């Protein structure tokens, strides 16, 4: 057999398909052939199906529950209510925010669609029939659905279960519907800056309640093996290990006897972080019956009972000199958490990382106060590609900048540039406590402005405005900019934990004798392509082609402990763990190479996929050879095998940023906004797989479009929820979605092993303000300062009408 000519270095790098490669995804083979394995695909012998009886009322007492008719349906095995869960102390469960949430309503219901009873039957059709037959007698109570009225003296008492607890998980509660007050920054200093300021702009900015709405709803299969005493839970879990620990604590089954598996997940977007009553009920049902129990919700249940997003009423006050230098930022938030505070935030931060509200700007003093309140709405709050309230914070500052620009009669991009944190100021200590790792905002903004020819757009807009006033056109052009800095990668264990579990993450790698490898992480992809991209990190670190590395996540029996995937944390934390584990592998491989080549370790250098003797590259050992050697050689002082594990505690969060521009044409007579153009420049530090980054940006921008332009879950005075089905909940089709132009700069994170920052949530963080600013900009010259989202047709038309532009 002929020897192949040695590959060039360039080809060796290419073959690895490591960091920077547009490697095609390994997941696609199964998904394109319908061979994914999602929760509802799981079918186990004897499996039962669970379904909920849900409250039609937003606030009511439960007088009685009659299960008789339901139990009489052939094939119905049991009907659980709070009474059945009380002896197990499972009628309430702890939330991720230090509150408790009813698993099944105990004596009263607090939001329409709340879980009241759990029917378990032989199949889902029988369960559905039985659900209709459970008779619940309610006594309706006045519903509280206006957050602004929650703290009124005569506001109805919602949470009778904690009415005597005036000390909550986050400090004192000042009212029976109050949850917490979280404050950060220098309140006095900021108030002084405001009173001393030459210019102050103030606005109430609401970020409406929306919902992540992943295409796959939430669900699980619980299977209790009574013989071996082991509980297995398959489910739509973005944090499988945390679910295992929580499950152990509340079921009293030892953690080593619980296995949690997140199989393929059809989108998460934060909706699948928390623990839902369905999971608990299915687990209890399985523990009691000893057979598997499946629970999968339908879309309306998902939209009306699982973790919503946003519902923040933010009052911003921004102080500046008359030349446009910002001197202070004051912000108060009324946070509507629904009936239970089930917000998936790190324990110390009930308002997540809202600290980032100073945005990309060098603001010397700032204060933020967040009052969380209960209302008769579904619980939740943190979700939807927001990195823990970062979307809300970014929206506030990016709107305030525009409002300030109007007040100063300054171009909003120019105002931003004037106040940007300068490159030399990094790492930058913000007035609200976090240290931004790196950034080069001016370069990114200038690149974006050039790409869209910002000056030409303004010129065109001026001509359009004149034509409109002359009656030659009925559309108004808007140019919206957004320059966001977000904070992701939760996070340093010293201040970031979920229910006491530090927010580190992990990677474990084992190299096989023939030079391929398996790696497992504590994160879990829901479409982000980890099996493809984390193998790329490893490929670069250890010189084994990505194609030869299997990457697994999601099975708590085999994967090292991690806190899961949300808040764009996988790359910053697990990606770092992956690199560090890879470096441990390489360190051991170096010792093996030194032994084999009979030199000192220090005489070797690493080159792509091998260790070679410095100055004598012909003398080398590839990682593949070293792998075999680790199984084959008896090396003094070294254990056989080649594996490593890293648990990574990040020293800081990471701070991706971006410059987005949106051009719209608003038809003032119909309120229809045509998105003419959208340009998104993202800086996520080191780019692992540009193809995947681009896909994430496309997807996030589409979600942002939906939020800004039409999505809204509302509750009327009677406590009824609206927008809870796809009939009304706005999800754009391919027709409404424009072509996205993506671009990038690269400013690595100095503290991350490979300089990567994460990107999944940036487009939602930056996209919403870009769309919103564009719509506002169309009317700015006519006197519009702020109007609340969503910018759906009727609201835009009302704005035009109020400004006298249409009848």
């Amino acid at each position: 057999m002929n020897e192949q000519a040695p590959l060039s270095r360039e080809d060796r790098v290419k073959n690895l398909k490591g960091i920077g490669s547009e490697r095609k995804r390994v997941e696609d083979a199964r998904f394109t052939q319908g061979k994914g394995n999602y929760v509802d695909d799981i079918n186990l012998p004897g499996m039962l199906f669970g379904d909920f009886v849900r409250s039609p009322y937003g606030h009511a007492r439960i007088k009685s529950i009659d299960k008789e008719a339901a139990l009489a349906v052939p094939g119905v095995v049991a009907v659980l209510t709070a009474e059945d869960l009380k002896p197990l102390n499972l009628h309430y469960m702890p939330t991720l925010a230090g509150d408790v949430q009813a698993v099944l309503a105990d004596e009263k219901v607090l939001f329409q669609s709340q879980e009241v009873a759990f029917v378990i039957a032989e199949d889902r059709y029988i369960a559905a029939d039985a659900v209709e037959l459970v008779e619940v007698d309610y006594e309706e109570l006045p519903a509280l659905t206006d957050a602004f009225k929650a703290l009124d003296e005569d506001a109805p008492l919602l949470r009778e279960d904690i009415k005597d607890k005036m000390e909550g998980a986050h400090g004192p509660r000042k009212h029976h519907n109050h949850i917490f007050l979280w404050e950060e920054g220098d309140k006095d200093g900021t108030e002084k800056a405001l009173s001393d300021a030459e210019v102050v702009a103030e606005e109430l900015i609401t970020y409406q309640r929306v919902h992540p709405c992943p295409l796959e709803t939430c669900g699980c299969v619980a299977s209790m093996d009574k013989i071996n005493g082991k509980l297995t839970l398959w489910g739509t879990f973005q944090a499988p290990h945390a679910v295992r620990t929580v499950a152990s604590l509340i079921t009293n089954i030892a953690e080593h006897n619980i296995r949690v598996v997140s199989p393929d997940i059809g989108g998460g977007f934060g909706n699948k972080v928390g623990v839902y009553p369905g999971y608990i009920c299915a687990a209890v049902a399985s523990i009691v019956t000893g057979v598997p129990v499946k629970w999968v919700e339908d879309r309306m249940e998902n939209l009306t009972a699982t973790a919503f997003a946003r519902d923040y009423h933010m009052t911003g006050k921004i102080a500046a000199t008359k030349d446009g230098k910002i001197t202070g930022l004051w912000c108060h938030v009324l946070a509507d958490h629904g009936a239970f505070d089930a917000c998936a935030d790190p324990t110390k931060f009930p308002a997540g990382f809202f600290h980032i509200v100073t945005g990309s700007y060098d603001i010397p003093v700032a204060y933020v106060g967040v009052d969380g309140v209960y209302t008769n709405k579904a619980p939740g709050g943190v979700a939807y590609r927001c990195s823990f309230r970062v979307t809300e914070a970014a929206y506030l500052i990016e709107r305030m900048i525009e409002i300030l620009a109007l007040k100063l009669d300054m171009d909003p991009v120019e105002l931003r540039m004037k106040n940007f944190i300068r490159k030399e100021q990094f790492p930058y200590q913000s007035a609200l406590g976090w240290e931004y790792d790196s950034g080069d905002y001016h370069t990114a903004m200038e690149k974006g402005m050039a790409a869209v020819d910002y000056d030409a757009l303004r010129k065109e807009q001026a001509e359009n405005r004149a034509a409109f006033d002359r009656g030659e056109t009925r559309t108004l052009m808007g140019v919206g900019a957004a320059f966001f800095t977000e904070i992701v990668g939760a996070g340093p264990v010293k201040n970031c934990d979920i229910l006491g579990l530090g927010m580190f993450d992990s990677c474990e790698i084992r190299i096989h004798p023939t030079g391929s490898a398996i790696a497992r992480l504590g994160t879990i992809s829901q479409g982000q392509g980890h099996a493809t991209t984390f193998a790329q990190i490893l490929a670069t670190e250890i010189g084994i082609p990505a194609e030869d590395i299997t990457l697994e996540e999601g099975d708590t029996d085999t994967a090292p402990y991690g806190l899961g995937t949300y808040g764009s944390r996988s790359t910053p934390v697990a990606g770092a763990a992956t690199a560090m584990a890879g470096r441990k592998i390489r360190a051991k491989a170096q010792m093996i190479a030194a032994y084999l080549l009979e030199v000192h370790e220090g005489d070797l250098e690493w080159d792509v996929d091998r260790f070679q003797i410095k100055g004598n590259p012909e003398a080398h050992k590839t990682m593949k050879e070293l792998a075999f050697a680790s199984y084959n050689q008896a090396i003094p002082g070294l254990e056989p095998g080649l594996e490593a594990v890293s648990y990574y505690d990040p020293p800081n969060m990471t701070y991706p940023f971006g410059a987005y521009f949106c051009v719209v044409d608003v038809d003032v007579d119909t309120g229809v906004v045509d998105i003419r153009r959208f340009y998104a420049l993202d800086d996520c530090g080191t780019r692992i797989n540009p193809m995947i980054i681009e896909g994430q940006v496309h997807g996030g921008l589409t979600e942002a479009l939906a939020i800004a332009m039409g999505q809204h879950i509302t509750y009327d005075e009677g406590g009824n929820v609206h927008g809870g089905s796809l009939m009304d909940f706005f999800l754009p089709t391919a027709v409404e979605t424009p072509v996205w132009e993506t671009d990038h700069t690269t400013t690595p994170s100095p503290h991350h092993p490979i300089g990567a920052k994460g990107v999944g949530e940036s487009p939602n963080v930056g996209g919403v303000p870009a769309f919103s600013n564009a719509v506002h900009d169309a009317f700015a010259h006519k006197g519009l300062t702020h109007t609340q989202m969503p910018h759906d047709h009727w609201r835009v038309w009302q704005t035009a009408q109020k400004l006298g532009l249409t009848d």
Partner: protein
Amino acid sequence: MSKMHVKMTVNGKEVEALAEPRTLLIHFLREDQRLTGPHIGCDTGHCGACTVDMEGKSVKSCMTFVGQSNGKSVTTIEGIAHPDGTLHALQEAFREHHGLQCGFCTPGMITRAHRLLQENPSPTEEEIRYGISGNLCRCTGYQNIVKAITVAADMLNAQEAAE
């Protein structure tokens, strides 16, 4: 209510079963036939994740009772690849151009695109977007899906021309 006799052709195979008349075709396929490719994403017939090909037309199987599909020929994503197991051009193009992320909409999307390209072998971008307006995706923003379908169309037309 008693069960009814159901007989149809699924992915080229004759299947027979007893099922309640109210059984939705999506459940019949997923649970009775164990074809878990088509998915359920909503309750109101908007998302298209359940799309199958029935008698040469794209149909939402979550809004079809088994009785209505009696005697008919149904193709799911599991029947899109070639009989010898090689991938259809769409399946290759979706991978090549990153037309999927979580994969949940993908079976319905590819099944729909497959029929779209038979109805219109050289669609414009606008025609593609309009043609898949019954299939929602939350991950991709559609751009790479459109690209993948365009590339697949070119591949299929080139194959046609070569034959």
